[in-house]
């Protein structure tokens, strides 16, 4: 379990290191302060995973360093049960001159293992890292991916109760990342607490039970991963908006299932209505897999839109985006929309999705940027999860697993 209460951390920035001494002797401040973290509190219980997201420099790494005990907070308390290990940056305290095996012993000892414990686990660690003969080569010959393999293998086998994962994991190749994810899942099921720092919103949504977003050292939103990642994505979109200042993020509380959604809204644009329709124009809340449906949306605008573009995305119950596109990405020329008018858009799609609950979100923007894959000069609105749809099993279809039906065909050839 990890519990932190009101943790704040300021870095003192001095012109030269000697100023630090001058300050102590003269008792006159010679520095300016930089608040890396202010008043952070959260709790991660056994078997829980907390995701931490935020831009570079938001305070994520400082927070991890404080949790692991490398840095000490100015105020607040940090409670961690058992051992806390993790994968913080690359080459966590490895000695480049020593071989992989020697570093296992060195690093293991740093993580509080005795020689006998390491001796007993040595083979498991080597087996997990899969470095082959490189294990007997000095670490300085390793690639960053190999360092990460070794670092992760030692950290997870050091019997921690709490585990920290940061962006370093993304250095690994796809095979090893998957292997790490499985191991992390295993660790979680055995009652470990995990803190997961990532820029991969889908990974956060899939792995984490809760998430927080840091900005300038403060928690600006915390809650279910989907809510927090939506907010983060809106935040990024808003930042990319060249015409900034007009959009704002609105958080609405859904009373029914106590979740919040955060939307990007523009004062002049309103989503008047959204409907899901069948072929013959009936409004529906569910459909059968592989049916064709139409998403009808009506926007009203108070301003003139020179080159509006409309998009939608479909997400599954984990909040993972299954499909997204927009008129710009579909290379569709749109007509200008005059001020004080409404515009109705119909997207017709076929849904070959595995049965389950899905949500539909909409977006509207103005003026695509040439040469990009769907970046716009103005983002006018993102409306998250405005409509839910249940997709039911299609009895005429094949049985399959995964996300969607790829409609396989098969041929045989038997040679004797």
């Amino acid at each position, binding site marked *: 379990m990890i519990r932190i209460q009101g943790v704040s951390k300021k870095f003192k920035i001095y012109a030269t*290191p*000697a100023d*630090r001494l001058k300050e102590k002797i003269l008792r006159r401040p010679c520095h300016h302060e930089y608040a890396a973290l202010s008043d952070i509190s959260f709790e991660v219980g056994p078997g829980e995973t907390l995701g931490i997201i935020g831009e570079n420099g938001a305070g994520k790494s400082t927070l991890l360093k404080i949790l692991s*005990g*490398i840095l000490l907070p100015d105020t607040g308390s940090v409670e961690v049960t058992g051992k806390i290990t993790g994968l913080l940056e690359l080459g966590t305290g490895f000695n480049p*001159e020593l071989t992989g095996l020697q570093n296992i012993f060195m690093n293991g000892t*740093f993580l*509080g293992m005795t020689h006998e414990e390491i001796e007993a686990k040595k083979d498991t660690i080597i087996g997990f890292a899969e470095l082959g003969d490189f294990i007997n080569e000095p670490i300085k010959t390793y690639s960053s991916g190999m360092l990460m393999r070794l670092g992760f293998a030692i950290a997870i086998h050091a019997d921690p109760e709490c585990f920290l994962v940061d962006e370093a994991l993304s250095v690994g190749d796809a095979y090893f990342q998957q292997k790490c994810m499985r191991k992390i899942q295993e660790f979680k099921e055995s009652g470990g607490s995990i803190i997961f720092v990532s820029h991969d919103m889908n990974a956060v949504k899939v792995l984490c039970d809760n998430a927080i977003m840091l900005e300038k050292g403060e928690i600006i939103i915390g809650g279910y991963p989907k809510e927090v990642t939506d907010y983060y994505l809106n935040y990024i979109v808003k930042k990319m908006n060249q015409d900034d200042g007009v959009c704002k993020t609105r958080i609405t509380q859904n009373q029914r299932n106590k979740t919040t959604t955060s939307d990007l809204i523009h004062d002049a644009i309103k989503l008047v209505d959204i409907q899901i329709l069948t072929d013959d124009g009936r409004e529906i809340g569910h459909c059968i897999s592989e049916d064709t449906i139409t998403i009808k949306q009506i926007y009203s605008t108070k301003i003139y839109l020179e080159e509006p573009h409309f998009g939608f995305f479909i997400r599954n119950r984990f909040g993972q985006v299954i499909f997204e596109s927009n008129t710009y990405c579909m290379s569709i020329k749109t007509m200008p929309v005059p001020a004080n008018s409404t515009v109705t858009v119909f997207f017709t799609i076929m849904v070959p999705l595995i049965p389950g609950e899905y949500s539909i979100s909409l977006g509207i923007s103005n003026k695509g940027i040439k040469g990009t894959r769907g970046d716009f000069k103005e983002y006018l609105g993102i409306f998250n999860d405005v409509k839910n749809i249940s997709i039911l099993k299609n009895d005429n279809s094949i049985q399959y697993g995964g996300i969607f039906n790829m409609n396989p065909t098969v041929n045989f050839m038997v040679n004797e």
Partner: protein
Amino acid sequence: MSLKQQLPLLWELAKRDLWERYSGSSLGALWSIIYPLVAIFIYLVIFANIMGAKLPGSSNVYSYGIYLIAGVIPWTAFASTVTRASTVYLDKKNIISKIPVDLNCFPLYIVMSESMIFAITVAIFFVFLFVTGYTFTPLVLFIPLIFAIQQLFAYALGSILGIFVVFVRDLKEAVNVIFQFWFWLTPIVYVAEILPEFAKPLTEINPGYWFIGGYQQILSYQAMPNFGALAFLLLVTVALMFCKIKFMRMMERDLRDCI
């Protein structure tokens, strides 16, 4: 973490330290025997047989060599411990900034590794002494005691300097310079008696001589070490240790930020 839990870590760090010193060389750790071997050989054989240097009032050809080695070996251990401990936080920043470790471990492992080298060197020295027909007295049993007090003192001093050096990097060089002076201010190469009258009180207030004098008494004069001076050194060490603990408590956060 208690000391007992940290023992495997300290042991591993000290072992690595000895190993790393000569890593990459084919003779490896053997060098830690070759160096003292050569030094002792030079002091003992060259000074005695070639230069014919003797201690005042002694007829033994090896007397000066023994006196010199009795001072140089512990001094080397002391000086290396303090100077290396004073830079250990900077040297090990790649560990301190990545892994949570008790900061006190670092000067402590230096004490351990330097003590091991001392033990090896003394063993070689004793073999030489035995070969030259030196008669050992039970007084040599006091040597570990003197050495323990000396290294405790070195630990406290080195740790305090180590904290300072992180903030004032120039101090690193200053420590080396001070140790050069300190070596020549301490009667190691010369005997205290040859000092002019005005300089003699200097040896009284020189903590280095409080323990170096002890080894010389035992090995050269086969006399009791000055227990009064040693007791006083212990007292100073305890006081320094308190300062160190207090100081570390005050500065640990800044130190970790600064590294």
